[in-house]
């Protein structure tokens, strides 16, 4: 009972913070601040994962997203001198169009959700939740059986490797070209 009340409180608290930070991310004039707001959104998302019972995922979120991706984004901002070159003023028409499109999507999606009975299995007589999700994730990721994810896991690792190489090649080429033009 108390835990449910806490969950409610935390959910709405984090939801408010998360939506506010998200809005700040897309609306902020300063791109570096937007990066910081994004970091906040991602951290609250980690909190949501904990609320949803995915502690391992919350850790991954913090490690990869906050510790890696956001840092990369900050690098991108700096390397392209976006923060000093660009005062971000989208045109009025574009803002209007984007708002209509985004809110239409939101309205439609919530309309669909409210009209759909999502099969909630967590009503007590459903199979119990996995006790140790971290262990289960590890087991499933390396499972070679029919329900295992070892092949997607390997593919993802290959993807990451190729991205590593590709990213450095693309960036290097531009640097080489810059050297030439000098």
């Amino acid at each position, binding site marked *: 009972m108390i835990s449910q009340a806490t969950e409610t409180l935390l959910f709405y608290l984090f939801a408010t913070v998360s939506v506010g930070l998200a809005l700040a991310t*897309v609306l902020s004039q300063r791109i570096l601040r937007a990066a910081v707001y994004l970091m906040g959104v*991602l951290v609250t998302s980690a909190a949501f994962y904990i609320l949803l*019972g*995915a502690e391992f*995922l919350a850790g991954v979120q913090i490690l990869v997203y906050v510790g890696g991706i956001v840092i990369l984004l900050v690098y991108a901002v700096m390397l392209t001198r976006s923060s000093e070159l660009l005062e971000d003023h989208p045109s009025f028409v574009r803002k209007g169009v984007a708002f209509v499109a985004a809110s239409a*999507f*939101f309205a439609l999606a919530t309309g669909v959700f409210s009209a759909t009975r999502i099969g909630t299995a967590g009503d007590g007589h459903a199979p119990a939740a996995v006790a140790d999700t971290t262990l289960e994730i590890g087991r499933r990721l390396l499972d070679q059986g029919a329900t295992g994810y070892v092949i997607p896991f390997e593919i993802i690792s290959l993807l990451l490797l190729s991205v590593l190489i590709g990213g450095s090649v693309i960036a290097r080429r531009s*640097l080489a070209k810059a050297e030439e033009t000098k």
Partner: protein
Amino acid sequence: MIEQLATLAPGPFHWLSLTVLLFAIGIYGILTRRNAVGILMAVELALNSGAMNFVVFNKYVAPSAVDGQIMAIFVIAIAAAEVVVGMAIFVTLFGHRRTVDVTRMDQITDAAGTN
């Protein structure tokens, strides 16, 4: 008070509404940001909310398995890959054109930016 709060515990509808709201904000950012890096951030926002959807469904539809969480991990990995490639492209682009303003990138050719 607490009882009241307990009855208001978020169900799947609330969770999904939250993620979809975040996703919509991400779309808005994608469509309005002029800075390419800003667009990339908005994409991350949308991706993040998408990953969260998997976890939500995992909890409310199939709590006895962890497939949704694994999917979320994959999404995070792909997001990381995407950011790496995106950053490399933007840096290259910036080297060519001295700008990453997408509203000025309306040519397929490189005419505007070479030297």
